[in-house]
């Protein structure tokens, strides 16, 4: 029988959402249209339309050593062209954001190639070749993994993940990179991810409503969503991992 990955434990819809996002066969629902130019603008690594800067000559112009792994693994477009490594970083609110740092790293590892994700408690960074990054970033921003109010594209000054939301339902941002238009409810980026003002605003659409967020979140939250302790299977799994790790700390000897 062929192996079928389980992706993760859990009986609640939060666990199911996690599995869905990690499964590369599940097509992520597209919720907003953000153009290539807009994604490039928000990331701020290069001017839209300008040439990609390179870190080394294209692979086709290089003398590569005879290596069986290089024959097995096809280089990504960015690696073939010798692009620089660039990054995008996200902050996700604890209040039912559709994705969260560990989840991001898991799903990116399942879905994308040639990436280096870095996970922290309130933010997650993914690094890769520039033109690959732009392709991946468009998917990360345009699909169900992103909410305009509860997910922030923030290269620095990321604080906000664990803070209460403001009266408009937006996650705190010291640099206020994205603002809500009170009349239309549309949220737009006015600064790039490191806080440099943009020449043109980038609209990322309206925030999702509370019902959608609750149904599609991958974050356990006992006050505003589904509590972690409501998921007996998840608790059992985490306790098993915890127990095994503690026991291994004492180097047990098998009889």
């Amino acid at each position, binding site marked *: 029988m062929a192996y079928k990955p389980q992706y993760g434990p859990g009986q609640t819809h939060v666990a199911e959402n996690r599995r869905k996002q990690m499964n590369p066969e599940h097509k992520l629902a597209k919720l907003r249209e953000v153009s290539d130019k807009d994604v490039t603008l928000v990331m701020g690594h290069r001017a839209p339309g300008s040439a990609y800067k390179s870190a080394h000559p294209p692979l086709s112009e290089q003398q590569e050593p005879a290596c069986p792994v290089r024959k097995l693994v096809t280089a990504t477009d960015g690696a073939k062209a010798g692009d620089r490594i660039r990054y995008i970083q996200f902050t996700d609110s604890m209040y039912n954001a559709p994705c969260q740092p560990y989840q991001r790293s898991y799903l990116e590892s399942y879905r994308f190639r040639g990436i280096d994700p870095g996970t922290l408690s309130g933010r997650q960074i993914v690094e890769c070749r520039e033109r690959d990054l732009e392709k991946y970033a468009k998917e990360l921003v345009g699909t169900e993994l992103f909410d305009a109010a509860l997910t922030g594209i923030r290269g620095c000054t990321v604080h906000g993940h664990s803070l209460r939301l403001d009266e408009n339902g937006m996650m*705190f941002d*010291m640099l206020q990179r994205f603002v809500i238009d009170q009349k239309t409810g549309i949220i737009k980026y006015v600064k790039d991810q490191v806080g440099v003002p943009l020449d043109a605003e980038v609209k990322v659409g309206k925030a999702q409503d509370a019902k959608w967020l609750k149904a599609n979140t991958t974050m356990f939250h006992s006050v505003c969503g589904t509590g972690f302790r409501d998921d007996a299977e998840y608790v059992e799994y985490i306790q098993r991992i915890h127990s095994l790790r503690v026991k291994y700390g004492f180097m047990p000897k098998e009889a």
Partner: protein
Amino acid sequence: MTEATFPQCRIIPERFLNPETTERLLNRVISVPGILRMVLNGPRLPATVTYGPAKGLANPHTMRQKIQVGDQELELQVHVGTVLLEIESRDVIPALQAAIEPVFTDFTFRIQEGRFMKTEPSLVDYCKYGPDADKTMLGLADPNSKSRPIIIQGNK
């Protein structure tokens, strides 16, 4: 002179407050007799970007605005999340609760009683103010900053 026996409480709204709501809330708070000291707590909103590639650039923020509280104008330096209060007696709390309830129409709040403000000088306070520090001023402003507490006329 602040006595350590004065009770303290704090107002915790469910959401961070917009400047207009903060102004409405504080004007209601100061209408209650018996409030001695007050601190607005929350994450800071600096006027310039403090670090990162954009360091030094202006940081326009819609939550950093001037508000009018009583007869004083003050510029918010934080996105208000909690209001700490020192009060004359515990009897003030029900009056405070009744006064501020109309402000919170779209979301909830609660008032907690406890000890939240500084009552004794820390080492930094000692360096800045010396041995005879005015205890009413302790904890109201960062000793390293040049800003001073704002005094709002009492109504007693």
